């Protein structure tokens, strides 16, 4: 591990283990910070490269939770607890949604309708890029004029809901992305794309979006 400064992000205050990537400092202290961008905590005596024992790590996580609640989380925490008390567990039936709605109304949120519009627009953009690449033989690096829609019109037969699964032919557990890359390499005769290549992600986004909610029925569609 290098001594380049890094931040620790605790995604959930309830995490059992703390991943500590220490910030290089003159002192023997390590600082951890939370995903709200505000809450930080110093762990005295933790040297760079050292790992916390599990019990101590849980204590630190608990301390982080306190810091967060002090900073801004108290109000939100209370509202979540109230929601959890009134809401039914997932999947949510229409009746339960109605029961939960009054509790959710009027709760403070920093997200606006405009935010929602921006998020949807960004998602739509990715799905549309994926649609284009899906229907274009060259867009994914294919070299023989075969495009995804030739075997999968309207994403038929992509069955993303069946992944992950053991792919007999490759002798590996496959994710949807692996299968997309296999198709790029084989029927499309291109080079497989990097894991986080935007084109690959876009095609995956389009397939997942088009097949959202499709029931699992192996071999049927």
């Amino acid at each position: 591990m290098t001594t380049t400064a890094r931040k620790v992000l605790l995604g959930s205050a309830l995490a059992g283990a703390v991943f500590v990537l220490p910030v290089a400092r003159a002192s023997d202290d390590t600082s951890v910070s939370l995903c709200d961008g505000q809450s930080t905590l110093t762990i005295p005596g933790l040297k760079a490269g050292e790992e916390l024992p599990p019990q101590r790590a849980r204590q630190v996580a608990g301390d982080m939770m306190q810091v967060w609640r002090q900073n801004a989380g108290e109000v939100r925490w209370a509202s979540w607890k109230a929601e959890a008390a009134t809401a039914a567990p997932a999947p949510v039936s229409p009746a339960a949604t109605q029961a939960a709605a009054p509790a959710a109304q009027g709760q403070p949120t920093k997200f606006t309708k405009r935010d929602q519009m921006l998020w949807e627009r960004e998602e739509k953009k990715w799905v549309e890029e994926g649609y284009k690449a899906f229907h274009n033989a060259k867009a994914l690096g294919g070299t023989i004029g075969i495009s995804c829609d030739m075997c999968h019109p309207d994403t038929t037969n992509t069955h993303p809901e069946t992944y992950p699964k053991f792919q007999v032919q490759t002798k590996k557990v496959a994710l949807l992305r692996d299968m997309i890359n296999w198709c790029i390499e084989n029927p499309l005769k291109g080079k497989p794309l990097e894991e986080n290549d935007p084109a690959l992600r876009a095609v995956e986004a389009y397939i997942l979006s088009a097949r959202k909610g499709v029931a699992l029925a192996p071999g049927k569609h």
Partner: protein
Amino acid sequence: MKKDRFEKYLEEREAYFGRVQGLGRRDFIKAAGLVAAAATASGKLLPHSFQPVDVVHADAPDKSFRFAYISDSHLYQKSLNERFVRAILKAVDDVNAMSPQPDFVLYGGDLAQLGQPGELGEGAQILKALKAKTYMMVGEHDWYLDMGDKWRALFGKDTYSFDHKGVHMIVLNSVIVEDYWTGPKLSPMDRMLAMAQLDNPNGRPFTVGDAQRDWLKNDLAKVKPDTPIIVFSHSPLYKIYKAWNFWTDDAEQVQALLAPFKNVTVIHGHTHQMLSNRVGNIHFHGMLSTAWPWPYAPQGLPKLTVRMNRTDPFDELDGCGDGWIDVLPGGHVDKSYNLWSRNPVRVSASYLGSDGTLDRPAAETDVNY
């Protein structure tokens, strides 16, 4: 008043002898010989009070004959894509290896992928290697780059008919669509690309069209109702799934023109899969593609179709193939699918004629992959 069984028997007996008396001696002998074949092929179940016999005309075939088909090759030029070229060469080899040779070969359309002169030219060259006589039919991928100029130069008319051993054969151009390119000023290639995308949400439905239906009406006027008819069409001449143009918009009108004929079979391309259907006296069979298989549409599948199992993407020949058609005595048709990676499948006239009760093709077991 409901007739009792004996009265019905007398009526059928009267009708039978009436028909028989109308025959000359040669026809009578032929009719007697054809009884069993006609009964099963038309799907009539036994016993009836008087066995119904299709008294066939002397013109209808008294021996079965066979022709082969190759379809939907979607060729790019070899320099770009060898895979589709290898596939059509394999089909040509299959047909040339048939012994005895088929009476003729029908090419089912979509010889080219993007209608390019190079693609059509290469395809024509490859098909020249066929030993048997070849009849060509056009598909949308052949047509919409130049509206058929190169096709007609290479292969002649896109709509025509001919007679063979007592069967009247009709070849249609059933991929006519309304003009979608003039308004938005699409280039020829844009027009072709729009047509080439099967799931194009702005696609226009295939039709046979008014002009061609008039031609068909006139052509059929010269044909006796007892003469068996085989119609070759790229689009299915019935309606399966509009979003993928597994569809002919004026299907009902075309079927109405064919309805007066006792024995009609439609052989169609475009769908790249095993498909079987029956509407009245018309049997419908799909042809396999040499290039790639389409999945089944989410809805609209005719109930008589026994689905082929989902194809294996790790086998580039799976779901592809060619096939042949046996025209039986009396003019009904058994269709054979020569799948390259699977056991061949035969869909018989008696299966369709009996509405699925007789001779059902074996269903494949599902696999999960």
